[in-house]
């Protein structure tokens, strides 16, 4: 086993999440620690990118909050992510949806993939 895999086997707990990719609409339930209080904050939006491999992978979720675009980057293996819920699977032709940043309103909608 190589060194990087060994280190993560020792230090990073394995996590099970539903599969999701760019274009999907998800909710990330994220633990926030304030002093000694802990609460869960949920962030709902579209995944605009999945980045990196292995234990250092991350993804970015974009949402429009009060008319302002907000993006938040989550490391996939962060111990503070409590759960990830996938609401919609998007029909997109790109792996990185940075074009969403220039769009708003109707044109920023992502079509849902129906099975």
């Amino acid at each position, binding site marked *: 086993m190589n*060194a*990087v895999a*060994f*280190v*993560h086997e*020792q*230090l*990073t707990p394995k996590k099970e999440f539903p599969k999701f990719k760019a274009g999907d609409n998800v909710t990330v339930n994220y*633990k926030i*620690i304030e002093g000694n209080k802990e609460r869960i904050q949920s962030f709902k939006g579209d995944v605009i990118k999945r980045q990196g491999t*292995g*234990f*250092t992978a991350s993804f970015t979720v974009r949402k429009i909050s009060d008319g302002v675009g907000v993006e938040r980057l989550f*490391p996939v*293996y*962060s*111990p*503070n992510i409590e759960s990830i819920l996938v609401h919609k699977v998007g029909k997109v032709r790109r792996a990185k949806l940075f074009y969403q940043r220039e769009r708003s309103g109707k044109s920023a909608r992502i079509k849902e993939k129906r099975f």
Partner: protein
Amino acid sequence: MFTTGTSPSCLRVRKTKEKVGSKQGLKPILSKPAVLYTLQGTNCRRMKGIIGKKIGMTSIFDPSGKQIACTIIEAGPNVVTQVKTSDSDGYKAIQLAFGEKKEKNTTKAEINHFAKASTSPKHFVKEFRDYSIDKQLGETITVDIFAEGEKVDVVGTTKGKGFQGVVKRHGFSGVGEATHGQHDRQRAPGSVGGSSYPSRVFKGMRMAGRMGGDRVKLKGLKVVKVFADKNYILIGGAVPGHNGSIVLIQK
């Protein structure tokens, strides 16, 4: 951080530091100033160190969930191949060896040198002066000389960048503007020596040239984790050199 120096200047640094320390209610660094004179001409403190190989970088999460970038170094086991003492060599040091080497690629002199420590030929040999741990010839030093949370210095050779211009090598910003009829000046070094005065180029003028491949010491890096059975040590942040290069971890 105290570096090498002659004893009087060294003493001065210590004294001022002690004063500051006592004001803040800290412990003085050295309780016996007389020790300084016995260490004159060498490092003011005894150090410990280990030779390792840079494996690569990754990131782990600390208990609060913060992501920490860290470098994995395969450090040791190092074999003590020579012990130098004040009587035999005029100074105290130990020589450590790391990494296997084929016997056919080793000279007879080297083979015998390693045989004295009853070990196989080693790839890399380095001397550490005033080693703080007492070790005998042939004994091994492993990564567990370092503890988690300790601050260490890491020495390595930076990646070679080849012949580079002044913008990359020295951080110059080029000359002039991009437009208004200018061309070929965006990465230029500018004037290097005036025409009437000084009418020459000063020594040490920063110009284009070979970049990288330098010995660099990074001070005060934190030991994030030690895996003693695998000889791995995780150091917070980046470390000079490419993956697989030799690095020294010392304190």
